[in-house]
C-alpha cells in the first residue's frame, strides 16, 4: 500500500469521525448508534496506519490477498449494520402501532366525555 493511499484513507477516516460526532452533537444521530460507526472508523484508521498487522492477520486466517480480507470484513460489518437497522425499524413500527391505537382510544374517551357534557 502506497504512503499516499494510506494518508488519504487516514484523512477520510478522520473526516468521517468528525462528521459522526457532529451529527451526535446536533442530535441527528443517537450516541448509541454512533458508537457502531466510530468503531468502524477506528478499525479502518488502524489498518491504514499499520497495514502490516492487516496483512499478517489475513495471512493467518488463510486469505490469499489482504484486500480480500478487508473486503470481507467490510461487507460483514455493513451486513451486520443493515440487519440491526431492520431490527430497529421493526421495533419502532411496533411502537408506532401501539401509540396510534392508544391515541385513538384516548381520543374516543375524550369525545365521549365532551358529548355527555354537551348533553347536560
Amino acid at each position: 500500500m502506497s504512503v499516499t493511499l494510506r494518508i488519504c484513507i487516514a484523512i477520510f477516516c478522520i473526516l468521517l469521525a468528525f462528521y459522526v460526532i457532529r451529527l451526535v452533537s446536533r442530535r441527528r444521530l443517537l450516541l448509541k448508534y454512533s458508537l457502531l460507526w466510530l468503531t468502524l472508523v477506528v478499525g479502518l484508521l488502524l489498518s491504514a496506519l499499520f497495514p502490516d498487522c492487516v496483512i499478517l492477520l489475513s495471512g493467518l486466517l488463510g486469505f490469499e490477498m489482504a484486500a480480500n480480507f478487508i473486503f470481507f470484513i467490510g461487507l460483514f460489518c455493513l451486513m451486520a449494520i443493515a440487519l440491526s437497522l431492520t431490527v430497529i425499524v421493526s421495533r419502532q413500527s411496533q411502537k408506532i402501532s401501539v401509540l396510534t391505537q392508544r391515541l385513538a382510544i384516548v381520543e374516543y374517551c375524550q369525545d365521549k366525555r365532551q358529548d355527555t357534557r354537551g348533553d347536560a
Partner: protein
Amino acid sequence: MQQGKRDMSRPRVLVIIPAYNEQESIVDVVRSVVAAGYDYIVVNDGSSDATLSICRENGISVLNLPQNLGIGGAVQAGHRFAQTFGYDIDVQFDGDGQHDARFLDAIVALVESGADLAIGSRFLEETGGFTSTFMRRVGKSWLSWCLRHFAHISVSDPTSGFRACGRRAIDLFADNYPIDYPEPESIAVAAGLGLTIREMPVVMHERQGGVSSIGFAASAYYMVKVTLAILIAAMGHTARRGR
C-alpha cells in the same frame, strides 16, 4: 349499575368493524349490526375517503386511527378497545358488506359455549353464497394444510375475517396481533397457546364497494409470507413447550 336495563347473566358483546375507505358500505353495515342488537365500534383505519365524516354525520361511534395501520393494526385496536371497556366477547365484522349480521347470534353462541376463538367459515358446508375465485380457494386449501400440519389445528376457512373472540383471545390479540394478512397467522398463534378454536358455517356476500385488500399481484407475496408466519408461529410454540 343499571341492573334493570341489561341482563347481567348475558356476556357483553362488542362488534368490531374495521373500515378502510368504505364510504359506500359503512352506514348499511353499521345499521345491520345495530338492527341485530349489538354494541359496535367502527375502527377507521386512516381512510383517505369520506368514511370518517360519513360516520360522524350519521352518529356512528368511531375509533379513529390517526394514521393507516393496515387491517391487523385496525383489528388489534378493536381488541384493545374491547379489553379497555371490559367486553366479554368481541366479533370482527368487515366494513365492506361481505359479512351478514344474521350470523352474529350463532357465532357469539359458539364462544359462549366454550370456544376462545370462533371462525365463520364459507367452506364448512355447502351454504351457497360467495366463495371467492378458484385461485383464492387453492390458496386457502394450502393454508389449511399448513395449519393442520404445523399448528395441528383443522380450519376450513383460515382467511375468514368473520370471527368472534372470548376473553382469553381478546387478551392475547390485544397484546399480540400480526400486522398484515393477520387471520391465518393469529390462528396458528392461538392454537399454539392452547386456545379452543371452533368453526361454524356462514354465508358471505360479494363486497358492496371499495377494493379488496389483496390484489392479484400481491397474492404470491401473501402466500409466502403467511406460510412463513404459520411456520414461525408453530416453531415458537414448539420452542416454548421444549423449555
